[in-house]
């Protein structure tokens, strides 16, 4: 079942149950784990890491692990935003354009001579992201059109307009502090070459976003309402939920995270190019879908999404470390994505076949 379960204060339930029930409950935990795609994804990732580590000892090192976490930050942050939109029943792939516009405006402020305060510099992309995200929400809500098509349209509008206005100029030579944050570590080690490595600030941002996302999705009414909206829109309407507000939240939250991802990417590369991000939507979509989120809404988890992001990064990373020619990388990624979504659908199909059981006398 692709589903982010409510956390289970199981103890209370057990208090009311007999010893016998208690046993079955515990068995349920295990059997239920095997109905979740996260479990399978974790196993796949585990096996992959094990196999690659055996073949290439360079893979399983703290440095490489931390590097993978740093590399994944950009996709990871976007994936969480995309997950929110997916859970409430939409598909918005305009986030790369949003991130580009947001980061570009930030970069302009960064290199402007007016000495814009740091806080403002960082708030610009976030505000721009939220604004563009809410434009999507308004259009999707008002026009009742498939969100993917509105998103495709807006992606092109945002991207096209930015390109026209910017003339495609790249922005670089940012202030020193920007470079220091990008290269900085929360904690660091020094290896035998004298190189420092550690937990990057970029990873920290990603982890923080993930924690916020878990809290929102599992422990807040807002989060549960998003699931409800994705599960049954008519029931959500009848329960008196404001569909518009929920949508506005989901799409502008994706916009916000797109802005944040724009900052992270600029920190990472120290270059802002208008054409650097558009076209990378599919990495994010693939990661979220691999993570077990339902493309039609109502189900998906932050944990699964993180695993999906890591799986894609690890595959790419491992392919190079395993010395496989770059020409074949895309074949592997495509095959893994296809295999994974097929298995998910197949399990759902088989589960449905088993239904409709009558207690025959």
């Amino acid at each position, binding site marked *: 079942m692709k589903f982010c379960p409510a956390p289970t204060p199981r103890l209370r339930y057990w208090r009311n149950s007999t010893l016998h029930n208690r046993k079955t409950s515990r068995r349920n935990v295990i059997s239920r784990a095997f109905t979740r795609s996260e479990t399978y994804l974790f196993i796949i990732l585990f096996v992959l890491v094990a196999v690659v580590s055996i073949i290439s000892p360079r893979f399983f090192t703290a440095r490489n692990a931390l590097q993978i976490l740093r590399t994944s930050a950009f996709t990871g942050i976007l994936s969480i935003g995309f997950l929110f939109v997916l859970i409430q029943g939409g*598909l918005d792939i305009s986030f790369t354009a949003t991130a580009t516009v947001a980061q570009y405006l930030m970069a302009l402020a960064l290199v402007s001579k007016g000495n814009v305060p740091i806080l403002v510099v960082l708030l610009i992309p976030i505000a721009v992201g939220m604004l563009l995200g809410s434009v999507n929400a308004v*259009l999707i809500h*008002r*026009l*009742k*059109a*498939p969100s*993917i*098509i*509105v998103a*495709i*349209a*807006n*992606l*092109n*509008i945002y*991207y*096209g*307009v930015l*390109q*026209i206005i910017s003339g495609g100029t790249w922005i670089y030579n940012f202030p020193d502090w920007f470079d220091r944050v990008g290269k900085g570590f929360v904690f660091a080690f020094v290896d035998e070459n004298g190189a420092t490595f550690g937990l990057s600030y970029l990873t920290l941002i990603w982890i923080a976003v993930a924690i916020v996302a878990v809290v929102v999705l599992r422990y807040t009414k807002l989060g549960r309402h998003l699931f409800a909206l994705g599960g049954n829109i008519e029931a959500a309407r009848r329960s008196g939920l404001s569909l518009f507000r929920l949508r506005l939240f989901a799409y502008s939250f994706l916009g916000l995270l797109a802005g944040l991802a724009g900052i992270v990417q600029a920190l990472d590369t120290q270059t802002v190019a208008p054409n650097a991000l558009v076209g990378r939507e*599919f990495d994010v*979509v*693939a990661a979220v*879908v691999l993570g077990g989120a339902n*493309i*039609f809404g109502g189900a998906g988890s932050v944990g699964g999404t993180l695993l999906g992001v890591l799986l894609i990064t690890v595959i790419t990373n491992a392919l190079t470390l395993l010395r496989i020619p770059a*020409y*074949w*990388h*895309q*074949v*592997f*990624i*495509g*095959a893994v*994505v*296809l295999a994974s*979504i*097929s298995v*998910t*659908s*197949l399990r*759902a*199909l088989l589960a449905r076949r088993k239904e409709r059981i009558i207690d025959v006398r």
Partner: protein
Amino acid sequence: MFAEFVKRYQSWHDRNQDIAALPWLLFVVLAIMTVATGGRFLRAHNITNLLAQMPELGLLSLAMMVPMVTAGINLSIISSANLTAVIMALFLKGVFPQGAGGGTTIIIIVGAIALGMIVSIVLGLLNGFLVGYVEVPAVLTTLGTMILYEGITLAITRGFVISSMPEAYLLIGNARILGLPIHMIIFLVVALVMAIIFHRRPYGRHLFFVGSNPTATAYSGVNVRRVLLKTYVISSVLAGIAAVVMLARFNSANARQGSSLLLSTVLICMLGGTDPFGGFGKVLGLVMAMVILQAVTNGLNLLGVRSFATVAIWGAMLVGVIAYRYYQHQKWERKRKQLQRARMQQ
């Protein structure tokens, strides 16, 4: 005479309300472009140019439309067309003898096209199997195969362009019969065949039923899985025909050729009245939408407008079409409810 025409138009209009605005839009776009370009738009040279550019876009849009009618989508049309084109190109280059005679040439070219069609069918079977029998959502299936097929093409070509097809093959993309480019004729024939399939073959009707309500269709004795399988095979074959045309027109094949056309095909389908929720769509609407968009792009290029402006304008047009459809739909919905209530009251 004129009255007859008006009457005919009125009846056509009533039967085709979803695309009835398109002829007007087409007229407006042509008029604006003609005037704005100072007449250059309508010069014979540009008309030829327009005719030459339409077929591949039209074929790819048809390839997008067929699954869209079943409430699906096929994101892999471009990459499957490229894989098909690359394999055909390798075949043509591999077996074409120097200075071959007419007969051999034709056999080899027909062989290459047949090979391309087989490749397309295989690629479509994978999509169709996953969508129809494994019930993977179409967006995901074709997203996966889009990555996979492009990867395979990349691995085969190692990134290089395969070019310099035999002269005889290039005729498909450049020669004319009765003033019409051969590939335009191919497109027109394919569009006609598709229109006939849609409206006059049981399979075509099944497509619409599956798009509207797959459960009720299955309860009516239709094998929905097989319909879906066929749908993606047909979509892939249409993309394959586009590959035949593109290979001839561009004289080369490459892993990432034409990637920018994917958005255009979705836009054309939407503008042409194909319902992305499935169940409705007309080839005539698609053709008109394609001409409109082609005219807009071409006109903007003639005016020297930057391509990013074109990108933004297309996006804006898509929003416009969605908004138009929404308000039109609301109008119908109001009418329908009114009718229904009136009936209940009787």
